[in-house]
C-alpha cells in the first residue's frame, strides 16, 4: 500500500477553556457530531493501528488535550509504540506535576500557544486569562528538559508584536517558535474580516522574521506559516491529500486534515466502525482527491501541480463552494476575485473607509447558535 501516513493528529476533545476567535475547530464543535468522545481503549487502538500503518509522529491536540484525565495513559501507550509524541496545549492551569507525569510517561515535545507578547493582549485574544499560566508552563518545560515550541497564530491584532514574540521565545530558551499566519477555516473563516491583516503589516512582520532568523541561526528555529490569501499560489495541501497525514476527531471521525470535515459533499468514516488502515486505503473521502486525476483546469495542465497539488480542497469548498475546484487563492483560479475582495475589504477598513469588524469568540453557546443557524 502506497502512500502511507507519517502523521496523526489526535484531537482528544473539543472542550477548551480558551476562546480564541481564530480556532481551527469546527464551528459546530459543541454539536451532536462530536459529542461522544472516544474512550481510552479506543484511542489506544487508534494509536496501535496508526503505528502499524506507518505513522511516526503523533500530535495530541484538541480543544484542550490536558482536559482528558487519561492523557498520561494515552502518552504511555504512544511512547510504548515508539511514536514521537507532541502535546499541543494552551497550558491553562497546567501544573509542573502534570508535566512531570507526562514526561515520565514518555512525552517527547511540548507546544504551548500564546496569543500575544504581553498579558493584556494575550488574554484579550484568548478570551480567558491564561498568560500567567503559559509563562509558568514555559519555564516548567525548561526545568523538565522538554523541547519547547512556542506557537502563535498571527492576525491583524497581534502582527505588530512579532519581534516581541520572538524575543520572548528566545528568552525562554525555546527550540522553535511557530509564527502561523491565520488560515481561514473554522472560526477563523467566520471571523475573517476581523482577523485579516493588511499587506503593510505582513511586510513589516516578514522583515522582522528575516532579520531575526539571521541573528539567531539554529539557536531558535523560526517557522513562518504563509498568509496564503496574500500569496500568488496556494499552499501545498499537507503534502497532498491523504498522502502523509490524517486527523482523528474527538468522536472518532477520520479526516485527511483537520479542516476537511467541513466538506459536506464527502462522507467521513469512524474508527468505531472501521479499522484505520481500511479508512486510509479504501474510504471514499481519502481516495476522492488522491493523485491528480480529479484535477480540473487550470491545474490539470499546470507544471506546479506536483508541488502544490492544486492547493487546498477545504478552501475550494469553503470559498468557491466546490471541493473539486482549483484553490481560489491561486492567481490562475477563476475564483481568485473572491479572495481579492476579502483582502481589499481589510485595506479599506485600515484606511478608515469602513468600520473594523468585531470577532465572535469560540465558545460553546456561540457554537450551538451557529450550528442551529446552519
Amino acid at each position: 500500500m502506497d502512500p502511507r501516513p507519517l502523521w496523526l493528529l489526535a484531537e482528544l476533545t473539543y472542550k477548551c477553556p480558551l476562546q480564541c476567535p481564530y480556532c481551527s475547530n469546527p464551528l459546530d464543535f459543541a454539536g451532536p457530531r462530536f459529542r461522544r468522545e472516544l474512550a481510552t481503549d479506543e484511542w489506544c487502538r487508534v494509536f496501535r493501528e496508526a503505528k502499524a500503518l506507518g505513522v511516526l509522529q503523533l500530535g495530541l491536540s484538541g480543544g484542550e488535550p490536558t482536559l482528558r484525565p487519561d492523557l498520561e495513559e494515552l502518552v504511555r501507550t504512544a511512547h510504548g509504540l515508539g511514536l514521537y509524541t507532541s502535546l499541543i496545549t494552551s497550558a491553562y492551569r497546567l501544573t509542573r506535576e502534570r508535566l512531570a507525569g507526562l514526561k515520565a510517561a514518555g512525552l517527547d515535545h511540548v507546544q504551548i500557544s500564546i496569543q500575544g507578547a504581553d498579558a493584556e493582549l494575550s488574554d484579550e485574544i484568548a478570551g480567558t486569562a491564561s498568560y500567567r499560566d503559559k509563562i509558568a508552563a514555559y519555564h516548567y518545560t525548561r526545568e523538565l528538559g522538554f523541547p519547547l515550541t512556542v506557537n502563535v497564530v498571527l492576525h491583524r491584532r497581534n502582527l505588530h508584536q512579532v519581534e516581541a514574540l520572538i524575543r520572548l521565545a528566545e528568552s525562554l530558551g525555546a527550540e522553535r517558535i511557530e509564527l502561523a499566519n491565520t488560515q481561514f477555516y473554522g472560526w477563523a473563516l467566520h471571523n475573517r474580516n476581523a482577523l485579516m491583516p493588511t499587506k503593510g503589516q505582513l511586510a513589516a512582520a516578514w522583515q522582522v522574521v528575516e532579520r531575526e532568523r539571521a541573528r539567531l541561526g539554529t539557536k531558535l528555529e523560526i517557522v513562518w506559516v504563509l498568509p496564503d490569501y496574500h500569496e500568488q499560489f496556494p499552499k501545498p495541501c499537507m503534502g497532498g491529500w491523504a498522502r502523509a497525514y490524517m486527523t482523528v476527531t474527538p468522536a472518532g471521525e477520520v479526516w485527511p486534515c483537520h479542516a476537511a470535515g467541513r466538506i459536506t459533499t464527502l462522507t467521513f468514516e469512524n474508527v468505531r466502525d472501521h479499522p484505520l488502515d481500511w479508512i486510509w486505503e479504501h474510504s471514499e473521502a481519502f481516495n476522492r482527491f488522491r493523485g491528480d486525476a480529479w484535477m480540473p483546469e487550470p491545474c490539470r495542465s499546470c507544471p506546479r501541480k506536483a508541488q502544490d497539488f492544486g492547493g487546498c480542497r477545504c478552501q475550494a469548498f469553503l470559498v468557491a463552494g466546490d471541493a473539486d475546484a482549483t484553490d481560489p487563492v491561486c492567481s490562475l483560479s477563476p475564483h481568485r476575485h473572491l479572495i481579492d475582495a476579502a483582502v481589499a475589504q481589510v485595506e479599506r477598513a485600515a484606511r478608515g473607509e469602513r468600520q473594523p469588524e468585531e470577532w465572535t469568540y469560540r465558545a460553546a453557546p456561540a457554537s450551538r447558535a451557529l450550528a442551529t443557524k446552519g
Partner: protein
Amino acid sequence: MIPHLHAKARLQRDEVRGREVLLYPEGLVGLNPTGAEILALCDGARSLADIVATLERRYGASGLERDVTAFLDGLAAKGLVVYGP
C-alpha cells in the same frame, strides 16, 4: 569534538518502511544503514575521530572522515546534532 544527538531528536526503527529514522519536533529524517550506524555511534563518549576509526575498522576502509563529517554537519545545520567539547 564529541558529536551527540540534540535532546529533541530521537532515533527510531520504522518497521513499516524497513529503515531507521531520526524523529524531532514536527519532522523526521529517513536514514540509510550507514547514517543509522554513524548516529548509533554518537553516544556522547566517542569523539569524531573515534567514530571514524571505529567505522574504518569495521569496514576495513580508510578515508571515511570526509563522508562522516559531511553527514553529521548536515544534521548539525538542522540543529539535530550538537558538537560537544
